[in-house]
């Protein structure tokens, strides 16, 4: 197994764990945490491809992409958590399956 | 001779390492550095507790420790023994694991931070390229330790104290980072040894070219040190402990050795952040005047560190504690914009480095000072004005 594949599989597992968490947990905060895990897995992929991807001329793109991704994750978490807190204020609950106002 | 004296510790370590087989050498080298750091700074911690108690006593017109040893010098040892022999109490309702891990979480990152601080010429444990970032990243782990202690104790005072402390730490982390950013901008590197090197040389026949001797550097140093005071939760920013309001904040349920670890962690982070402040603005281990170059570099670092510590002690003895809203207002309405301004000023300084016409130096100074002073007047006037109290009206 080449080093790249090792990292890719770790990232895939991390992604799967995050996805499973996001799909199965009721608490909105944990769902958000699961999404963070998925993002992190993506970042790991970026770095792994940057390191072993075979594009020597491209010295910084992977890193820069991950930096942007981290920034986006930070923004997403901030807004997401603010939303959760606001919802909690109105509904006194953070259970995701109780929020279905938007159903068709 | 001076050269040898300067490199004494480096040579000693080299000599020691050379005794061993090549496989072991990197490991041993790292171990020796770590041991030296832990030993020296733990010793400094002991000394500082004594110095602080003595200093505060002077300020408050009393004697301070004077029973154990000459001038109470062995007081820290006695304190340490007492701490070690105390009963380690864990509340029944506490989260055992978190409660146990919190003090470790506090001390370990701080010790990690020392890895990148150059304490002398060629005396840095690891010269990371992103050393400053490493320091800041590791420093942000402290907040977690505070939270773990506060939440794990299952005590409302400790939780309140922890929340307060985290709010404060996060708020002051931003000015801290921005104040350091100006130096990074001018030095063009995140590596702390490289930042020290960027302050090499002398101006005006003998005055070192430290960043603190520029308008933005002076402002940045002040702001950095204020933020550092808040970040290490020292007076006047010691709200997280606030013994008169929330007893001792997140540490209320700790006793014995764990409490000592918290105490140690606080002082170690104080030294670390002072060390970084020195590195960023005060030229690190460099001497202030060219004719003082004969003194070993680590002596200079130690002297500066001592000066910082004394400054902190003095501050603690002088200033009253802030209120929580004052603390936040100060952070977001004054510190944050001002540090942004210093970044702009540093950029202006950097850009104007190429000026060469008559009076360029003066113009540069005036411009840079104006960039800082005008926003300072606009921002500071409101905060530094004499406070008027409105009683129930």
């Amino acid at each position, binding site marked *: 197994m080449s080093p790249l594949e090792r990292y890719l599989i770790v990232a895939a597992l991390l992604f799967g764990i995050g996805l499973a968490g996001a799909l199965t947990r009721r608490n909105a905060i944990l*769902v958000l945490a699961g999404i963070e895990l998925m993002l992190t897995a993506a970042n790991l992929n970026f770095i792994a491809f940057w390191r072993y991807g075979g594009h020597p001329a491209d010295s910084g793109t992977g890193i820069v992409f991950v930096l942007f991704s981290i920034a986006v994750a930070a923004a997403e978490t901030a807004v997401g958590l603010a939303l959760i807190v606001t919802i909690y204020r109105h509904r006194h609950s953070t259970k995701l399956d109780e929020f*279905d106002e938007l159903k*068709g | 001779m001076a050269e040898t004296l300067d490199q004494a510790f480096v040579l000693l370590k080299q000599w020691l390492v050379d005794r061993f087989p090549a496989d072991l050498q990197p490991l041993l080298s790292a171990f020796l550095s770590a041991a030296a750091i832990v030993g020296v700074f733990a010793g400094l911690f002991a000394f500082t507790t004594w110095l602080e108690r003595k200093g505060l006593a002077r300020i408050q017109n009393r004697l301070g420790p004077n029973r154990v040893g000459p001038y109470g010098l062995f007081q820290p040892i006695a304190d340490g023994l007492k701490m070690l022999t105390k009963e380690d109490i864990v509340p029944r309702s506490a989260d055992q694991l978190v409660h146990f891990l919190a003090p470790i979480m506090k001390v370990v990152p701080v010790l990690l931070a020392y890895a990148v601080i150059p304490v002398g010429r060629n005396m840095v444990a690891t010269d990371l390229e992103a050393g400053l970032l490493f320091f800041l990243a590791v420093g942000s782990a402290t907040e977690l330790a505070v939270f773990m202690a506060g939440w794990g104790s299952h005590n409302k005072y400790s939780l309140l104290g922890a929340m307060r402390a985290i709010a404060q730490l996060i708020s002051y982390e931003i000015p801290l980072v921005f104040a350091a950013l100006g130096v990074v901008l001018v030095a063009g590197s995140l590596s702390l040894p490289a930042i020290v090197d960027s302050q090499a040389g002398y101006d005006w026949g003998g005055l070192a070219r430290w960043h603190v001797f520029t308008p933005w550097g002076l402002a940045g140093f002040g702001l950095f040190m204020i933020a550092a005071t808040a970040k290490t939760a020292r007076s006047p920013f010691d709200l997280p402990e606030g013994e008169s309001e929330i007893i001792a904040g997140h540490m209320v349920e700790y006793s014995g050795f764990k409490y000592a670890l918290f105490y140690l962690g606080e002082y170690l982070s104080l030294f670390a952040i002072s060390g970084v402040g020195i590195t960023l603005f005060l030229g690190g281990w460099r001497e202030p005047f060219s004719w003082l170059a004969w003194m070993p570099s680590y002596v200079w670092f130690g002297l500066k560190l001592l000066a910082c510590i004394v400054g902190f002690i003095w501050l603690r003895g002088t200033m009253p504690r802030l209120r929580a809203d004052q603390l936040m207002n100060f952070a977001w309405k004054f510190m944050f914009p001002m540090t942004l301004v210093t970044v702009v000023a540093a950029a202006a300084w950097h850009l104007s480095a190429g000026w060469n016409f008559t009076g360029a130096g003066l113009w540069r100074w005036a411009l840079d000072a104006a960039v800082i002073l005008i926003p300072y007047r606009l921002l500071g006037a409101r905060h530094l004005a004499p406070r008027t109290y409105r009683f129930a009206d």
Partner: protein
Amino acid sequence: MNWIVHQLWLIPALPFLAAGVLALTPRRQRAFAARLAISALAVSLALSCAAFVATLGHAGTGTFRERVNFTWFQFGDQALRLGWVLDPLAAVMLVMVSFVGLLIFIYSVGYMAHDANFTRFFCFLALFAGAMLGLVIANSLLLLFVCWELVGLASYLLIGFWFHKPEAAAAAKKAFITTRIGDVALFLGMLWLYSAGGTLLFYDAGEGCLENAALARIAGPSLVGWGTLVGISLLIFGGAIGKSGQLPLHVWLPDAMEGPTPVSALIHAATMVAAGVFLVARVFPLMKPDWPSLAGGIPLAGTPPPDATLAITWVGAITAVFAALIAVAQTDIKRILAYSTVSQLGYMFLGLGVGGVAVGMFHLLTHACFKALLFLGAGSVIHGCHDEQDIRRMGGLRRPMPVTFATYAVGMMALSGVPLLFSGFWSKDEILHAAHGWAGSRIPFYLGLFGALLTAFYMTRQMVYVFFGQRRAASTPPAAASGIRHPASGEPHESPLVMTVPLAILAVSAIVLGFLGTPAWPWLQTYLGADHGGSGGVELAKLLTKETLWLMAISTAVVTAGIGLAWRWYGQRPITDAGTPDPLQMSFPAAFRWLRQKFFVDEFYAATVIRAHAAWARFSDLLDAWLWGGLVLAVHFLTQGLSWASRFFDEYVVNLGFDAACRRLRRDGAFAAGLSDGKLQNYLRGIGTAFACLLVLLLWGGCR
């Protein structure tokens, strides 16, 4: 090159900066506003003095002229270059403007102390001073023009400072529009100059438009070239006429009295009107080219051809007398001074025309001092009398306001030209002397003498009205409230120290300044003439001859006659009641009416220019209402008809099919809406399943 030359831009920049900061300053920061404006101008004054000293050191060795030029922007191969210049002319103007300006600033602190818009006032003042200083140092006609327009803008803002007063707003508009007429001429002249000479820089290492090479290029070898040069000069002079209130564009200047008094002082002494004179002095080589030295030769060999100075001389001389005549019959204290300014500006142009730069500038400098003094004195009087401006309702102020009286008397004597001790005498005498020696005609000289007589007469009349006799305020109620501060009844009082100290300083300088240019020691003439030496009638050797002494005797006699006449009519029989008609009115009712009504110039303009304009506007309005309006209406109806048709088609043809489609869409939409149950994780599940399926499909499909 001296360091000050490089930093010369700071002189106008500092007041500009102060104005900019003040524009953003909240209204309550009064002390800050005053302090900032005054300190900015004080630094400018210090720098101006440094510049002056720098030129001084070189005065003996010939021309001191240092310039800094830079390219503003480049379009195509044409570079638009600006710059600044330091020469004796600019240096004395800088010192004068910043010195007088500074005193007026300080005075304003007292005068405007109760005004709500104190900060705005100082912002405008600083802008005014900065614009004027910029105008002085400009080394390019374009830069000069920019500052010139800024001066106009600032004067507009300041004259209309109390814009809630209709008169003030009207006066501001009048000033702006009237000067704009002159500015159009100046602008045309500038364009012509650029097309003819290829540069607007005054001095540019021999290539500037005031230097011989460029002049020769413009003038050329033919009569056409001569015409070009004279045409450009006359157009530029047209700008000066507008700015300096010469006939026939003088009408705005007296009306500008509606502004606060420090503004009047600033306009009349240091900035606005001086700009016109300075402009002519600056481009004097253009106005009066040194024909023999221009290469190429002149077709009219022998006698030099007439140039623009002819026009300058006549306009100046006629204005001097014309305005002085009007001043005789006015009753508003500031209006008298305003007409006196117009008259004195006429003298300056006369001096420029007949004697060259030094003569005109000397009078400009002395006049700046004593006219600022007079205006500030008048302001002090108005302040002390609780906003009373009518001299008929003053009287006897000598005792309650001693300092004002003393300084005002100095100013009055300087303006009248009382011999030997006062600056006005020397500078006016200089002009008369030059006029006497003018080759063209003797008439300007006689006009000048007559003007001097009138000047002495009306100033004495004003002095007597204001300071002598007895108080007449209570005898009639005040006619109208002037300014935002309503006249309060009460005894007149002396002004505060912040107002009287500038008066005293100005009084001293009104005396001292004259000795810089006496015939015995014509320092200023040599200083300025070092450059413009070949152009004028100043011949230093002859200044102490019999002719000079004779002229001085004549002018002394004329002044004495003027003062005596006025004293006899007004002083000997004290006027006791504000309603009493003027003694002059009793003697010559018809002539007095003409003078009181300012020769009906305003009415004449109203009847001709303004009426023509109004008629044209009415015609345009009719055209708009009927011709274009009708067209628009036709298009309107046409469009409406088309819309009706379109709507009909839309509703009964298109919509039928569309409605059916919509119904279908709604039914299907309802089904799709049922799929989204609002539960977040169900969506996520769907996405995950879809993603997995897609991946499996890809793997299966052999995408490897």
